[in-house]
């Protein structure tokens, strides 16, 4: 079927209502970028899932970063998005304006340069991400060890996709199929979703990030509702087995861990943390389980799990929570569902 037929099918679809979740934040952003929701029948609903790494980070992680940034001779080094995420009382950015030391970088390798330039400063890297970014942190560990760099620590909030998908399905999310994350699948391989597809008799479609690739995946899912299939619509870069070298590198430094997700709590085996023999590089990542809301009305958790739309949140509807005044993480990140709903003007 060619793409024009697929577009027509999806626009004219009048079968049973279908709810599909895109787990990956980059998909959420791509769906908004290409205006895909406007191309679907009202009977096909897309739900943004918990796939934006900063959105799913609990407040205690931010609080710990702030505590470190306020420690003498310690700098927190982070990607831009983390700076504006509210912790339980304030964000890293607000803390920086009070004198805490926070530096923004663009890649984990930048921290090596900083650490060498400032040998008397302890650099704590906010290592946040999914399977996609985690290998970069493993490579950073390689360099820290090989180059004997002693003034770098990692505060990790690293998460893995399959366990949270399992958690969503087991907790009654009303989802009929998943657009599986393209970048994550490069590392994990598409087969990682097979057990979940079979367990819940639900289709998974690995998709690329071009609009037509996403539409093709949506079509594949709609045609496979009720069947435990795994489809790979991103075969140029995703294999069934994934990237073995990256997986081995991860296994060398990290072990599975019961990660805490914003609004969802601890999910067994849903993250990774530095192994005990590398604990000296860890800035206290274990046990950051508290998840206090910056604003008690924030519905981040409900939205992240697809049980509510951003527009259902009183803070969103009341314009209390905006990209300028984010009350929750989903309004900060470019990949956050609230941010995307806001900038694409759904309610304005």
């Amino acid at each position: 079927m060619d793409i024009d037929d697929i577009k027509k099918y999806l626009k004219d679809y009048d079968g049973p209502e279908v709810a599909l979740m895109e787990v990956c934040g980059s998909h959420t952003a791509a769906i908004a970028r290409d205006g895909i929701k406007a191309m679907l029948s009202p009977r096909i609903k897309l739900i943004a899932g918990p796939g934006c790494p900063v959105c799913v980070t609990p407040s205690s992680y931010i609080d710990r970063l702030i505590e470190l940034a306020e420690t003498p001779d310690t700098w927190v080094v982070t990607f831009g998005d983390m700076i504006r995420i509210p912790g339980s009382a304030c964000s890293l950015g607000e803390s920086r304006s009070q004198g805490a030391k926070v530096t923004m970088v663009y890649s984990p390798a930048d921290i090596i340069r900083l650490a060498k330039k400032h040998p008397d400063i302890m650099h704590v890297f906010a290592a946040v991400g999914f399977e996609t970014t985690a290998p970069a942190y493993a490579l950073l560990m390689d360099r820290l060890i090989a180059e004997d760099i002693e003034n770098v620590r990692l505060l990790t909030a690293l998460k893995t996709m399959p366990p949270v998908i399992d958690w969503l399905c087991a907790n009654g999310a009303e989802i009929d199929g998943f657009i599986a994350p393209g970048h994550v699948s490069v590392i994990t391989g598409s087969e990682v979703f097979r057990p979940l597809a079979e367990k819940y008799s639900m289709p998974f479609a690995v998709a690329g990030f071009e609009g037509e690739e996403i539409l093709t995946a949506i079509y594949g899912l709609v045609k496979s509702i009720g069947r435990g299939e795994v489809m790979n619509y991103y075969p140029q870069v995703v294999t069934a087995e994934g990237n073995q070298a990256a997986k081995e590198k991860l296994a060398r430094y990290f072990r599975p861990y019961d990660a805490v997700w914003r609004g969802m709590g601890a999910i067994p085996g849903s993250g990774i943390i530095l192994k005990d023999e590398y604990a000296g590089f860890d800035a206290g990542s274990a046990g950051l389980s508290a998840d206090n809301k910056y604003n008690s009305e924030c519905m981040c958790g409900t939205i992240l799990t697809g049980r509510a739309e951003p527009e259902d949140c009183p803070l969103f509807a009341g314009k209390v929570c905006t990209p300028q005044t984010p009350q929750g993480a989903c309004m900060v990140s470019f990949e956050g569902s609230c941010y995307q709903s806001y900038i694409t003007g759904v309610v304005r």
Partner: protein
Amino acid sequence: MKITMEHGSGGLATGQLIKEVFEDAFDNKVLSEMEDSAVVPGSSRIAVTTDSFVVTPLEYPGGDIGRLCICGTVNDLLMRGAVPKYITCGFILQEGADVDQLKRVVKSMADTAKEAGVTIVAGDTKVVEGEGGIMVNTAGVGFVAEGVDLSSSKCEQGDVVIASGTLGEHHATILSRRMEIENSIKSDNAPLVDIVSNLMNAGIEIHTMRDITRGGLATVLKELAEASEVEIDIEETSIPVDRQVKSFCGILGLDPLYMGNEGKLVCVVPANDAEKALALIKDSRYGENACIIGKVTSGTAGKLILNTKIGGHRVLDVLQGEGLPRIC
């Protein structure tokens, strides 16, 4: 040689620095009078603007802070239909700044001013503590002919939107250098004098003109839609983006619609002038890749819509937040 605090003393070292670095490069009659202020011929209507430039790195493929600080101010004058005439510059030098690099920057300013047809008529230098940085403020004066009145509130239903070239080169260049990513993307740093004078001399009835700088095309057009209380619809397939910039953006998750240029403009003209205006821009220096990218419609006032290449629609807002580093 490096800049020291002494160079900012106002005494001997300052005088030597001005003589050695600035005087020869900017050589012109007004400046060499070395008076407290410049006295120059005027016009009954003038446009005045000022801008400060803080960019890392100071030199990058396609330009440097010297070219940037002239282009930025010249282009701001042009966008109101002014003919740029005079520029002033204030340098804030950090201790440790390299004098050879400063000379290159100043030469680049002089060359760009010459290209743009403006005279640098006044200047100032201060030295502050720091790590060898160079910051520049420029102010500009341009002459505005009687009857010329360009403003962001003048877009009308039926008007056509033209972009003078490909999006995002300056932004992508600066980010590439900062992130040490190897590619051959070059900044589009350029004064848009030729494009604007060709349009105005041909009598094109320009309703609005804006240079596409920080915030990118989407931010500029959204602001126009709001100021003019019209809807603007643009076509993704018509928006020119260089292939290399496109793939750079793809890798980093950036959107060319929100990336800054330093040598591109959008202009909004009546439909019956559109093809002529496009041809004039394409024949002008720095306008060869110009395209008609959209139109002003009768839809919702203040709304900017992108018709996506795959047939969807996307509402565009101004750039939100500041996740990206400052680029100019």
